[in-house]
């Protein structure tokens, strides 16, 4: 019915189809859920930054404390650093805090600065800060 050459060609076609299907399945399963994890960390970073921005720190609003720190009050900068690092314990992952003053000074707290950033919270003409959360 079939010649030997034809049968071998069929075999080859079947093997190629199998390889293509296996490849497609492997591709389908290799997709990671990285995007969802980033959304979660981004929500967490936003919550943290929002909580810091609104917090009262020993009778002073966080924004006023940050403004005063940017104006060169070292005591306020230390209070701010201690407050931020104390609250970093509430985050399971490594986290970082970056504040840029309008004068160019930068204050960094924590040990993770390359990760998922929150949106920036700013007081115009005074400072801008954001929180970074790194995957464990």
């Amino acid at each position, binding site marked *: 019915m079939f010649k030997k050459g034809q049968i071998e060609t069929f075999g080859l076609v079947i093997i190629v189809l199998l390889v293509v299907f296996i490849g497609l399945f492997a591709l389908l399963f290799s997709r990671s859920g990285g995007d969802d994890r980033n959304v979660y960390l981004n*929500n967490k970073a936003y919550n943290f930054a929002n909580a810091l921005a609104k917090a009262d720190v020993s009778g002073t609003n966080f924004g006023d404390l940050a403004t005063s720190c940017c104006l060169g009050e070292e005591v306020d900068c230390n209070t701010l650093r201690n407050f931020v690092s104390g609250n970093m314990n509430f985050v399971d992952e490594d986290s970082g805090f970056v504040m840029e003053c309008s004068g160019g000074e930068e204050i960094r707290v924590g040990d993770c600065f390359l990760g998922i950033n929150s949106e920036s919270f700013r007081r115009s003409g005074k400072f801008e800060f954001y929180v970074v959360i790194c995957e464990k």
Partner: protein
Amino acid sequence: MKKGQLQIQETGFVIFIVVVILLIGFVLFYQFQIRSIENLNEKYQEDKFEDMISFVPSMPELSYSVRGDQKGSIDFYKARAFADVSDNEYYKNLFGYKKITLKVSADTLVLYDNKLSSYTGIRKITSPVSVYNAWDEKYYVGVLEVERYV
């Protein structure tokens, strides 16, 4: 046996083998589909669970607002009231088998708790949240803990 009989037998045997292979294929495909649907459901539940850290603080039942203007914080007194009324069917349908806890300074409020009777493990996520206390009119950094019974 004659050559024709042998060929008929051979054809019958080949058809039988092909049918068996097809059946095995169908069973494997069905199992694969079931597994795939289970994985999708688990992923959906996990995504919903991780979304809780942004969903819970923004719930009108909990969020601090002034004349309808949401302030982006949890109202501590609303949270305390919510903890007393959350044990009902509406919230069980909304949250499922979870425990939601709010910790602020020395206070710990269990906002919701619905244990799965035969759970094998707990998945836990936490997030810092802003909490407003109307008593002293101050904002605090609290911790929202969400546990999922699995």
